[in-house]
């Protein structure tokens, strides 16, 4: 299977009045054609920043300070603005975390989708309108409502409009940033089976950013787990479920609430995410890791392949085996 997207040693920092916030540091992963990759991790760990870096949407005071992002062999970080205009929507598109970031409140949702289609595809207005209606119906919204304004839709409907919009120009890679978060389980099942179908039909690749572990494990081929700006583990879903290695991944798997046992108090992973501003060299999980030892406080563990296709950043194995 061929690689569609490959992210290598990506680092993106934000300047703040307190110093440099290392929101994403040294992140590497790739996505194959037709693959669905789940990118998960705690609130504030850098998921959206990764997505925005890939799409070159980082703005001052933020900056991609190192790394490369190859989309079908082309380095996006070196692409010119006109290259990017050609690539966005048709090659790669994003469903942003808040639907309101995708939608303009003063235009009808139909006009916005139609405009995107006309700008990027060689079709006439009538065809664009037809395609827009079909896209809306795909996400469970009456096609006739293309003349409605964003505020006339419910929260979940706006999210679905944003999904329809991202699919408007048949992209090869879609990055979905928490786009099913606000949806009830049935609608979520509907949207996800839609994305799954498209994925099979059009060989679409998807990066699914989410904090919802059960959802991600039920539909993704591979999973990448982030913690405080670093990727800590990356492997096939099955491997993560059976043989998660990183102490954070394990804690995450254990912290998922259990409906059949409502009496159980929901326990958080003790401690909180470290502040990313001026963070020293260390394993960023050491403040919460039950296995932390001296080395973890002084060095950053390398993100390396421990078995074929299974990558982990933790000193533990080395320590135990030698």
């Amino acid at each position, binding site marked *: 299977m061929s690689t569609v997207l490959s992210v290598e040693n990506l680092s993106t920092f934000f300047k703040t*009045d307190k110093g440099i916030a290392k929101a994403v540091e040294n992140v590497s992963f790739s996505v194959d054609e037709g693959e669905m990759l789940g990118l998960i991790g705690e609130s504030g760990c850098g998921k*959206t920043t990764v997505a925005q870096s890939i799409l070159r949407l980082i703005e001052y005071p933020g900056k991609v300070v190192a790394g490369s992002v190859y989309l079908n062999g082309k380095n996006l970080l070196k692409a010119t603005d006109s290259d990017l205009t050609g690539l966005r929507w048709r090659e790669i598109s994003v469903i942003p975390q*808040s639907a309101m970031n995708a939608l303009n409140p003063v235009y009808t949702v139909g006009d916005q989708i139609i405009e995107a289609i006309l700008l990027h595809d060689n079709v006439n207005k009538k065809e664009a309108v037809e395609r827009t209606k079909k896209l809306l119906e795909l996400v469970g919204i*009456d096609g006739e409502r293309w003349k409605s304004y964003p505020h006339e*839709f419910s*929260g*979940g*409907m706006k999210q679905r409009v944003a999904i329809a919009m991202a699919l408007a120009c048949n992209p090869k890679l879609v990055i979905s*940033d928490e786009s099913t978060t606000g949806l009830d389980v049935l609608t979520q099942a509907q949207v996800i089976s839609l994305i799954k179908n498209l994925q099979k039909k059009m060989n679409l690749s998807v990066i699914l950013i989410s904090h919802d572990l059960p959802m991600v494990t039920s539909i993704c081929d591979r999973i990448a787990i982030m913690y405080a700006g670093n990727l800590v583990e990356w492997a096939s879903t099955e491997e993560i479920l059976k043989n998660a290695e990183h102490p954070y991944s394990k804690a995450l798997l254990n*912290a998922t609430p259990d409906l059949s046992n409502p009496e159980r108090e929901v326990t958080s992973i003790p401690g909180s995410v470290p502040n990313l501003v001026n963070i020293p060299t260390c394993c960023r999980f050491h403040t919460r890791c039950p296995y932390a030892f001296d080395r973890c406080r002084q060095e950053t563990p390398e993100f390396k392949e421990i078995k074929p296709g299974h990558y982990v950043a933790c000193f533990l194995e080395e320590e135990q085996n030698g």
Partner: protein
Amino acid sequence: MDNSVLLKVNLLKKTFVKKTGTLLKRKKTDVFAVNNVNFEIRKGEILGIIGESGCGKTTTARMVMRLMKETSGEVWFDGVDLCNLKESETNKIRKKMQMIFQDPYDTLNPGMRVVDILMEPLNAHEKNLEYQEKVKLVKEAIESIELKPAEDYMYRYPHQLSGGQRQRIAIARAVILKPSFIAADEPTSMLDVSVRAGILNLLLELRKKMGLTMMFITHDLSTASYMCDRIAVMYQGRIVEIGPTQKIIHAPSHPYTKALVSVVKDLNYFIKNRERLIFDGEVDATREAVGCPFVTRCPHQESVCHSKSPKIESLGNSHEVACHCHEDLLERTS
């Protein structure tokens, strides 16, 4: 009114006009977003509202909070008829009633820093406090939502925060005045399990200490089961089932509730009925259905369901359901 009841909603209704048709032949149809909804929330109680996207949850909350005018019906808060209040009186009640909005990107003023966002309600309603005291309250509020140390976040603008961090600021803004009632619209949808647990426990703590009452809209059943005393299930603008949380989650009676619960609890039931339950196309809320609104998707329907709209009936123990076949259902599933 029973004085242990804080909020009472009576036959609440909201219709929107939707435009369809072509440019020349414009048609206007009514969308029955909220259709004769009744419920009560007792002091210190948390009522969950669940239901499919577009079923009317946010619209109900906005009417309760007086952010939207009802088409008809009544909202009573602590014995006061909110629908007939003067604006000055509504403003006074605002301090006691707060809303956490569904989309934190939409509701935090992008030009204000976190500290100003949290200071605003204090400036409006706690005029007697010294500046330093207010700053202290703001810092406490920020740390209580697990953004530590507060100094690192309070001088940021909303766009300098992640989605989940913004959502938490919206929660801090709602609780900083220690209101007696909060309508929370998907307040933790962007939070991962470990942070969410802390926030939910914070809200439960407020209830324990100050008797906070809540209307809690969520699509996440595990959150609902952790937080809520009772749950109301909405479908196409109506409440189709309401009752104690344990009943709704472990012994649901309405076929729609069964469908919702099955996705997480009983995958076999879900897979068996998947074709029907996962609906293609929007739920049609434009006509006042003659029969049961769920009939187009219901795996248990009988002929009566097509001709008669079911009334909500008590099953005892404050569990109510609107379905013609609930007794048969109970037998079939027990």
